[in-house]
């Protein structure tokens, strides 16, 4: 079984957009390693020919009626925004310094 290194935790944190401290890297590497070792038991069915289940209720293609219904107003949508400007969400710049 692969063990989870500090470098791997740093990579996962980057993928998940989580800034982590040096102490967290140590803590999470140890804990994730322990958890992954425990959950890896499911691997014993990996080679068996069993159809996967993604959902308890086998529903496909649920459509709603093509009807206009009221949604949020602009004011409601912006009411909880961390920052708004001119009736829009204001967001930080998208490109980094080096871009």
């Amino acid at each position, binding site marked *: 079984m692969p063990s989870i290194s500090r470098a791997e935790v740093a990579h*996962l944190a980057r993928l998940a957009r989580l800034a982590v401290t040096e102490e967290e890297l140590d803590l999470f590497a140890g804990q994730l390693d322990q958890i992954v070792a*425990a959950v890896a038991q499911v691997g014993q069915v990996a080679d068996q020919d069993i159809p996967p289940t*993604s959902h308890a*209720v086998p529903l496909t293609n649920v459509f*709603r009626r093509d009807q206009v219904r009221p949604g949020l107003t602009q004011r409601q949508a912006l009411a909880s925004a961390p920052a708004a400007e001119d009736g829009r969400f204001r967001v*930080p710049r998208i490109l980094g310094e080096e871009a």
Partner: protein
Amino acid sequence: MSELTRLTAAEIAVKVQAREVSAVEVAQAHLDRIAAVDHAVHAFLHVDTERALAAAKAVDDDVAAGRPAASPLAGVPLALKDVLAMQGAPTTCGSKVLENWQPPYDATVTQRLLRAGVVVLGKTNMDEFAMGSSTENSAFGPTRNPWDLDRIPGGSGGGSSAALAAFEAPLAIGTDTGGSIRQPGSVTGTVGVKPTYGTVSRYGLVAFSSSLDQAGPCARAVLDAALLHEVIAGYDPLDSTSIDAPVPPVVAAVREGATGDLKGVRVGVVTEFAGDGYEPGVTAAFTAAIEQLRDLGAEIVEVSCPSFDLALPAYYLIAPSEASSNLARFDAMRYGLRIGDDGTHSAEEVMSLTRAAGFGAEVKRRIMLGTYALSAGYYDAYYGSAQKVRTLIMRDFDAAFAKVDVLVSPTTPTTAFKIGERTADPMAMYRADLCTIPSNLAGNAALSVPCGLSDGLPVGLQIMSPALQDHRGYRVAAAYEAARDAAQGGPLIHRVPELEVSR
């Protein structure tokens, strides 16, 4: 303590309609109780005093005008888990990311409660984003178990279970992804029901693991849970996984069960859920409950569900995988916390800083675990295998329910553990969900009903039913509850120690 807070929900509703007591008096008695004991219990994150009293007044006005009751629970107070959206109050999910966030719409469950004349007292504490088994993962501090304030009230719905056991509310709503209704019910001596997946709308329920999340009723008595079940359940086009089928007749099943006859009912004891790791006191209470069911006429057989041993590992791959995707929405752009927006950081940096500051350790662990399980190279070994295990568990249930009407097990292997005891050991915490997880993976109905005490702490009996056969479990639970109360001289919950009251 006002006698009004000792009543069942069914009793309160009848008294309100008969004008023996006003809904406002009932609501005020519970608000007073919250004011007196919640400093010690910390079940509530938000108490909605004015709107609760206004809702109660509206019920009293209906009664005075001779209008028919909006539902069999009109005028009954309820504690709502803080994972369900309700306009005009914060919905935090126990997270700093959503601190003070006010949803611009009501969850379908909330809407059904309000329309039914149920009086929502406030929002209850929970593990952050419903991830946990102790409510210690709340960003706003733990909730304490009214049976012993040094112990956990279960999780993630520990606020809801503690509110019931502290007589702060006769009804509560929980959500159950891996046991978050049933395990808190077990350790607080209250009733907790996870309905069949898809029968209670998830619209407005902040998503943790969408294929597993299910809202359900919590109460101190089986009948109350059934009455609440019928208020909140039903098809909802706003939830695309909602099942378009009639609500199972759970109230009628409780009335049938309460007659105390279980002749012809076949009860299967899951053999995998016993032995090492199960506290002797839990096993003893469970065994006594089985004997009680036998005395009521039920036929008891042992049933093996071999794949249940793989349920816990499969769950801790599937739930974190779905969570890592669901929680990507907390990106600091349109709502919620934003950190580092000072002109020097890019949007991506702001996202990372916000999520680092806003999420607690357990949420971060699960996001990273899910990200790992879904990574190229590991997908087949982990997530793919977990999905196969899910199929095997459903097959085990199908085979079992071909032989028996319901399955039973302890709800959780231990009684309430001490606050702090498992926080440093995630796997030990995860094992609290050992017996509850299979029903989330398979989507069938399951409930927990109190079945005695071990060293003064409650033990829960789990009763599992096939999908859309929720009424079977209710019937057995109601029969058991009536026999238990008769044998023990009154409801188990009335043996909870008196809390110190502050004035």
